[in-house]
């Protein structure tokens, strides 16, 4: 048993939500990632027991999806978009500035386990291109300079909760659409911000 009782309870609750156990595999992989920052071998064994499929089957699914990480992820996952609307809005310059600042190539994590950098396909922020996500919190209308400011700020502030509205306010520019009222909910880990995985909190 590598998972603590609380996490196992959560896993069982999730399994209950689905007509068939195996459907919970995706959410359970997120629970695993919330624990270790990646899908560890111990978690694969645990999930295989919980869902009733083989370890190889778990690994086969985990390796298919880009958001399940095969290696440890830093405290902040920086995902810069390179798809068409961002590409024609100079996302390559934003990519270069983030790469230069962090000293990382795509899918690398620094020695301090602080930043993981990746260039990703469309994140649905095309109207506010170029865009970046920090732990899946979107910032739109970025410039190469603002991208560096954002990285520096993360280094200095080390926020426990990353909030899209706060980042957008500080470092963003043109948006895909009016975000309307600022929302203080954010993510607490490089796993999507979702109540079910306990990766969501409200910043006071």
């Amino acid at each position: 048993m590598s998972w603590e009782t609380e996490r196992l309870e959560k896993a069982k609750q999730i399994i209950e939500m689905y007509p068939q156990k195996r459907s919970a595999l995706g959410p359970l992989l997120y629970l695993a990632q919330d624990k270790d920052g990646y899908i560890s071998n111990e978690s694969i064994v645990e999930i295989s027991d919980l869902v009733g499929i083989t370890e190889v089957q778990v690994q086969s699914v985990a390796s298919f999806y880009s958001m399940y990480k095969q290696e440890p992820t830093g405290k902040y996952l920086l995902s810069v978009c390179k798809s068409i609307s961002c590409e024609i809005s100079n996302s390559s310059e934003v990519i270069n500035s983030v790469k230069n600042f962090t000293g990382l190539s795509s899918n690398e994590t620094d020695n301090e386990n602080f930043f993981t950098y990746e260039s990703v396909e469309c994140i649905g922020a095309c109207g506010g291109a170029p865009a970046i996500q920090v732990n899946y919190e979107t910032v739109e209308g970025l410039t190469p300079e603002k991208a560096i400011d954002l990285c520096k700020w993360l280094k200095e502030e080390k926020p426990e909760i990353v909030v899209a509205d706060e980042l957008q306010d500080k470092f963003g520019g043109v948006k895909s659409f009016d975000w309307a009222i600022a929302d203080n909910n954010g993510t607490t880990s490089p796993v999507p911000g979702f109540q079910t995985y306990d990766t969501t909190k409200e910043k006071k």
Partner: protein
Amino acid sequence: MKETLLLTKHMRENPEDSHSLKSYEKNGGYKSVKKVLKSGTPEDVLQEIKDSNIRGRGGAGFPTGVKWGFLAEDEERYLVINGDESEPGTFKDRILLERDPHQLIEGMIITCFAANISKAFIYIRGEYAKPARRVQSAVEQAYEKGYLGENIFGSSMNLDIVVHLGAGAYICGEETALLNSLEGRRGEPRLKPPFFPAVKGLYNKPTLVNNVETISSVPWIMSNSGKDYSSLGVEGSTGTRIFSLSGHINNPGNYEIEMGSSFGEFVDTLGKGVKNKAIKAYIPGGASAPWLRGDQLDVKMTIDDVANEGSMLGSGAVVMMDEDTNLVLAAKSLVSFFAHESCGQCTPCREGTTWLENILERIASGRGRMSDIDLLLDVCDNISPGLTWPPKMTTICPLGPSATASIVSLMKDFRSEVEILLPKKVVIS
């Protein structure tokens, strides 16, 4: 040209809290479903949807009423909302999920009433953290109020909704891949036949898979009428549609308009024009759609008109590229996308998209060969024989054939941009 706000009216008028249950109800929300549950029949709802002539908003444009009519009889049936929106250029479902989640939930309850379904799923792409949070909270609020669960609104209807997060795979927007993903498998599309979701869908049971925007339209249709809806827009493209406008444009964003005006008018009025430049080319319906040229801006924004020009309205994503755009890099970005997102099941797609990416990469970086244009077209022809649109298929799903769209456009209308990067004939003395 003006917007016609049906789906985005509430969020526009109540920017401070449109996502909350309180605001939604204050502005007439959940009235439609209450009326349907009290005095309507499933047949009435299906008839209204058929009368509305609404076509699916995910990309394929299949008539929704017909789709619902196909759903096979079974004790267990499911509704799955496709919120995997990942088509480059598209961000319309994001606004509907983030700013008006209760509208979607109300649409789902009505749909499930019409189709006698008691279990539904909302599949949201994993990268949409904020929209997913909003939807999850909305579902929880709806449960608290008794709008979901057992005997909802005091009727005999039961409905459970589960919010499920994807994990970064564009292919899961393809309905059968989405169902595999929801079953805890790799997001690989299934063969049709036999796996038509309406007959053999989730857990092999009859399943309705509908886009977020489609189902978000249901409350409006039911509180007005199918005929009212079909009186908007034009024949074959009725109602309103949310277009995501991006690229070299002064005023990018989501615009809800009736279909039927021209791209040029749309860009000039709502988009406030292109930044001091002429348009060289534009994408009329997402990354999978062949490009149209800057001199084709008078094409009407309807499903059929765009199809007649050899492209598609697809997911409603319009991307403008001005005269300074490097179209070789644009095509490379699009092809890289498909190469990255190929699920790997079918050889023409898995191998072909990677070849296309590599060839374009070397052309763009000045290492191209004189034979590369023919090679590009040959690879495209192997993925989709004849290079026609709609494309011929060699694969289980349309992802591979879609990858050829931008290259064929580039070669057909902008060949000189590629040729200039290739070496001239070498004379050996």
